[in-house]
């Protein structure tokens, strides 16, 4: 296993995912993530010169939906399936570090 990922980078990735790790867990993550990056390095050995990038695994083009509204009436089921809810709203732990894309 090569040390392709620093502890700080692992911490950064964890914070992007809003995850907190203990030092012990972080070490484990560094090693696991490094393994994944090793795999990517192996894949990178394949010569892809002249190969067009694959953006979609199907060859479909313009598979589009007409702009017509259809309410599937799934609200109650979805709310019941949420870990917690209140008055039809999904109740989640508050995150106040400004990750809101609209903020």
């Amino acid at each position, binding site marked *: 296993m090569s040390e392709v990922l620093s502890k700080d980078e692992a911490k950064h990735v964890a914070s992007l995912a809003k995850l907190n790790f203990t030092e012990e867990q972080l070490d484990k993550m560094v090693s696991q993530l490094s393994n994944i990056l090793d795999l990517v390095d192996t894949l990178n050995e394949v010569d892809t010169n002249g190969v067009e990038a694959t953006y979609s695994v199907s060859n479909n083009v313009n598979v*589009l*939906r007409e*702009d017509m*509204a259809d309410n*599937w009436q799934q609200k109650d089921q979805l709310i019941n399936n949420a870990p*917690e809810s209140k008055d039809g*709203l999904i109740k989640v732990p508050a995150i*106040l570090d400004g990750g*809101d894309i*609209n903020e």
Partner: protein
Amino acid sequence: MAYANFITTIGLEVHVEMKTNSKLLSPSPVNFGDAANNNTNVIDWGYPGVLPQANKGALEYGMMAALALNMEITRDIRWDRKNYIYPDNPKSYQTTQQATPIGQNGKVEITLEDGTTKTIRIKEIHVEEDAGKNTHGGDGYSYVDLNRQGTPLIEIVSEPDITSPDEAYAYLEKLRQLIQFTGISDVKMQEGSLRADANISIRPAGSDQFGTKVELKNINSFSYLRTALAFEEDRQARELIAGNTIQQETRRYDEATKSTILMRVKEGADDYRYFPEPDLPVVHISEEWINEVKNKLPESVSDRLNRYINDFDLSPTDAGVLTQTLIMSDFYDKTVGFGADPKRSANYLIGDVNAFLNENGLELQDTKITPEHLSTLIKLIDDGTISTKQAKQVFTALTQGQEPKDYVEKNGLVQESRVEILQPIIAEIVDNNEQSVIDFKAGKDRAVGFLIGQIMKQTHGNANPNVVNQILIDELNER
């Protein structure tokens, strides 16, 4: 306000919510104000295994915006994921067009208050999805409504051509106008269908390196944004003059103090880890499709403006006022459509109607004035039924929703055009003003104006001016 030895650079990122029937990637209805989470399904909630499909209408609206902003349309589009984790979007990514924005290389011409014009280039516009609404409860929890999640947006990104808060304001007004006339959005800031974020930096004159950008977010009116930018321009200049550096941060506007307040300091660049969206097939936009969309595009602002100038002989200024908003312009076209004289209709809307709206703080659509009624009123003036003075009274009735002809009949508001009534009144006034007769004979036209004034006073402004003029001249010539 700005310091002469600094150059200001402003970038604007404008989000416009599109008035489609359904969301960008799911058929859930797009509707503001419904019960929380009512307009959501498994796709909007980001459930595993769902099959999102892009909304053709949203792409077409995006093309309409691109055309309205003089942009090139990108022919091959793939979607990208912008990754961020926040409860307002259960998918943990926003579907957008990072690499292949639907429109590129646009430009708009803005007009500043002093009449000077400037071209502002637009870098690109993306079609993307809005996030849900996250309300902090103060109890350690947030409450999420996903009705807005997936609503189609266009994001409009300007090039760094804007160099003052006034230009930023004019640019936003111009965007709002151009987008509004395409009909793809209500572009109402107060309802959130238009949102504007700004970044601003200053640099010493002569330097070709941009200064550190400060972002301004959550500002809810164009004029607040202008004030906030002016404050920032000043604050940054004072910091630099004092030998301090500007830090990369996000600030918001505080209405009470008319200043900007630090929200958070940015550490490093945003890290959204964009990658191609594997769940959506690519989109190809053909020449044929573009032409189809062009044909669906309503008459543009500039086409309307030219039509008013060329067909209706209006001044560029008047045509400009009438095309400020789509509602005003539509109202004008309908009034003329009901047979009223185009020039007089323009004067009435720009004058009396606008004055009424300003006095009462109303928008045209919130009043009881209709194009049909206004047209009838104008025709009653033109055919001599009522005087312009009586028209004022009828207009007031019109604002209360009354039909002008009905009102005129019920209130006996008929202009006096009968010679047998006017003749004796005019004769008497001429009798009583011998000096005016002498002046008239001596070629002094002023005398006629004076006498007409007296006649109008006597008839309480209800006499038909054309008839009065004719009788008076005859009367004077006979003496």
